[in-house]
């Protein structure tokens, strides 16, 4: 007993050696001001306008490519039998994967009570939404006649036809549309109290009106908060299996097929880990410049960046294990086609891309094992760029290299992308960044109310409550002036 009491005593004395998740010297008002002012400020920062102009050009490139694609057909892409899936599906899987880090940060880390997530979750959720929007474009256009895409949904029609629910492509439709919808609900729900804060701190009439409408009349009622927190936690609990299911189902698109290089049981966990890996790389790719540009070092601290690096190391190991197992399966299967597929992957005409993938996803990121390197933002940023490229290459290796040389040598054919494949891909990058720029400027990018809960003064101190209850009455001192923000 005495020992247990001593242990408890020790636990109480335990001081967290890690740096705090909020920089020193922040209080409720400085948080509201710092985050809210980015949204409420008059005019635009020069850097923002410059960046926005560039990425908006990318969006225009995307819209033009889509217009031309709809007019001409998918023949403008390099896809041709046997490689019927190429850049479109590579990009689809790449974007969906990037989205997964957002849900991981906002849902799984919430369930695990990782409070450091509070400053990057909004940002990562927005990234999820925009990445899913970009991802959805590809299969929708790849159908060739996008105006007929409603056939993907089970809608009653005069022909009495229904979709085939035994097809993984149908599962994909449900998985991705559910994912997009639930991510949107989760994101919007997190924003409601912050929209209320924006409504109450905005000075301009139109800003007040817009934020009041978005806040839905939120007033911080204790009963509302109670239901809100319950619902938020439930949404997190629902999103967690959802996010795992989405990339699992995406991997089913491949693994249920009998194509060598696709037909592997390791695909679901390997794809999910790869998705998280790519997503965290993208979170850092965006967060490092943004925190610098807007001076948010007190909210997105080095601890966040270090933690993200560690998640990347862990998922990177799973991904590396996946690569090793793919090679092992090829050999251990004793199957001529599987063996050939592996040989073709490593030493075939696209072989250099396989080794580039290993370099980008396995070799370079291991630099992050060094604590010193994790603390160097330039290094971390460069490593993240390598991972972004590497994860794209991974999908190229899986999709194109499996299809271009399968069972019958007479049907082999090389795949070469056309210029429209690239304008489409880089167009979605531009479109994604355009949405990110708009988000950063017009929506509080860090959850204001969740940041407040990280401050020590936000906690209820039971001893102080006792003091108040036991009649330590203070005289009313009148009002203090209302803080004003937003110019």
């Amino acid at each position, binding site marked *: 007993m005495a020992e247990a009491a001593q242990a408890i005593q020790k636990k109480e004395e335990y001081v967290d050696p890690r740096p705090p998740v909020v920089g020193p010297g922040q209080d409720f008002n400085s948080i509201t001001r710092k985050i809210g002012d980015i949204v409420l400020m008059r005019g635009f920062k020069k850097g923002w306008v410059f960046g926005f102009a560039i990425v908006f050009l990318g969006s225009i490139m995307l819209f033009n490519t889509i217009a031309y694609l709809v007019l001409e057909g998918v023949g403008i892409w390099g896809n041709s039998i046997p490689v019927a899936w190429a850049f479109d599906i590579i990009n689809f899987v790449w974007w969906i994967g990037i989205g997964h880090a957002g849900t991981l940060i906002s849902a799984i880390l919430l369930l695990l009570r990782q409070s450091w997530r509070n400053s990057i979750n909004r940002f990562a959720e927005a990234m999820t939404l925009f990445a899913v929007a970009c991802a959805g474009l590809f299969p929708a256009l790849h159908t060739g006649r996008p105006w007929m895409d409603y056939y993907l949904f089970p809608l009653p029609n005069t022909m009495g036809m229904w979709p085939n629910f035994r097809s993984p492509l149908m599962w994909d439709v449900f998985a991705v549309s559910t994912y997009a919808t639930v991510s949107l609900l989760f994101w919007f729900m997190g924003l409601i109290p912050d929209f209320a804060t924006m409504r109450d701190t905005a000075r301009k009439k139109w800003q007040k009106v817009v934020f009041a409408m978005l806040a*839905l009349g939120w007033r911080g009622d204790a009963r509302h*908060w109670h*239901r809100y927190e319950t*619902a938020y936690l439930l949404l997190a609990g629902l999103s967690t*299996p959802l996010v795992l299911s989405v990339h699992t189902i995406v991997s089913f698109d491949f693994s249920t097929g009998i194509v060598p290089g696709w037909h592997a049981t390791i695909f679901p966990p390997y794809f999910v880990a790869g998705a998280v890996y790519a997503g965290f790389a993208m979170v850092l790719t965006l967060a490092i410049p943004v925190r610098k540009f807007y001076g948010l070092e007190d909210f997105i601290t080095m601890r966040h960046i270090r933690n993200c690096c560690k998640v990347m190391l862990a998922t990177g190991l799973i991904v590396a294990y996946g690569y090793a197992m793919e090679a092992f399966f090829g050999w251990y299967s004793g199957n001529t086609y599987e063996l050939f597929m592996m040989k073709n992957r490593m030493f075939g005409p696209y072989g250099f891309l396989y080794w580039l993938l290993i370099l980008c996803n396995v070799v370079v990121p291991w630099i992050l094992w060094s604590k010193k390197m994790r603390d160097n933002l330039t290094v971390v940023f460069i490593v993240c760029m390598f991972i972004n490229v590497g994860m794209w290459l991974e999908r190229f290796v899986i999709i194109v290299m499996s299809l271009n040389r399968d069972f019958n040598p007479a049907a082999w054919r090389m795949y070469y992308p056309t210029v429209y494949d690239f304008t489409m891909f880089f167009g979605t990058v531009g479109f994604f960044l355009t949405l990110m720029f708009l988000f950063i400027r017009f929506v509080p990018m860090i959850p204001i109310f969740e940041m407040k809960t990280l401050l020590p*003064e936000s906690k209820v*101190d039971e001893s102080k409550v006792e003091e108040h209850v036991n009649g330590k009455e203070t005289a*009313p001192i009148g009002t203090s002036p209302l803080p004003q923000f937003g110019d």
Partner: protein
Amino acid sequence: MTKQEEKGTYGLMAEFDSPSAIVAAARRTYEAGYRRINAYSPYPIEELAEAIGFHHSLVPLVTLIGGVLGALGGFGLQYWTSAIAYPLNVGGRPLLSLPAFIPVTFECTILLASFGAFLGNLLMNRLPQPYHPVFNVPSFARASQDRYFLCVKSDDPKFNDAETRAFLAGLGAKEVSNVES
């Protein structure tokens, strides 16, 4: 003042400057027998909801109902379309392809459960609600920033303007103001 009397009083609003103070005040108000009370804070405070006597929400139940409906609906949709409305014989495989129906059933469960959580939260909170009397208190704008408020509604059986005002002031409130309805 006649106009205000005509409009009536929604209640009395007391302003506090720390989470401990509002929780203490809420507990004392509840102990004093007030029941039609409400508290406001810029971020969720678990103790506060309990202090005003709110323990259980129905959000989990609504979520469960959504999930069950989603599971039944998703599976029913697949069964009906694949086995009854549009039976496709693929190499003699069973029309009721249970394993192949798992993913869509799962996704529909999650989708409707999420709508249950989201809409359950909003509707039980009676949101969207563009107008509410508490917004008439000028300093209430700080409820979403750095201040905590406790409101005793005028329809509380124990409510008496002068007494309640004195009681709230005695709790250490920074200010007690009238909420016009």
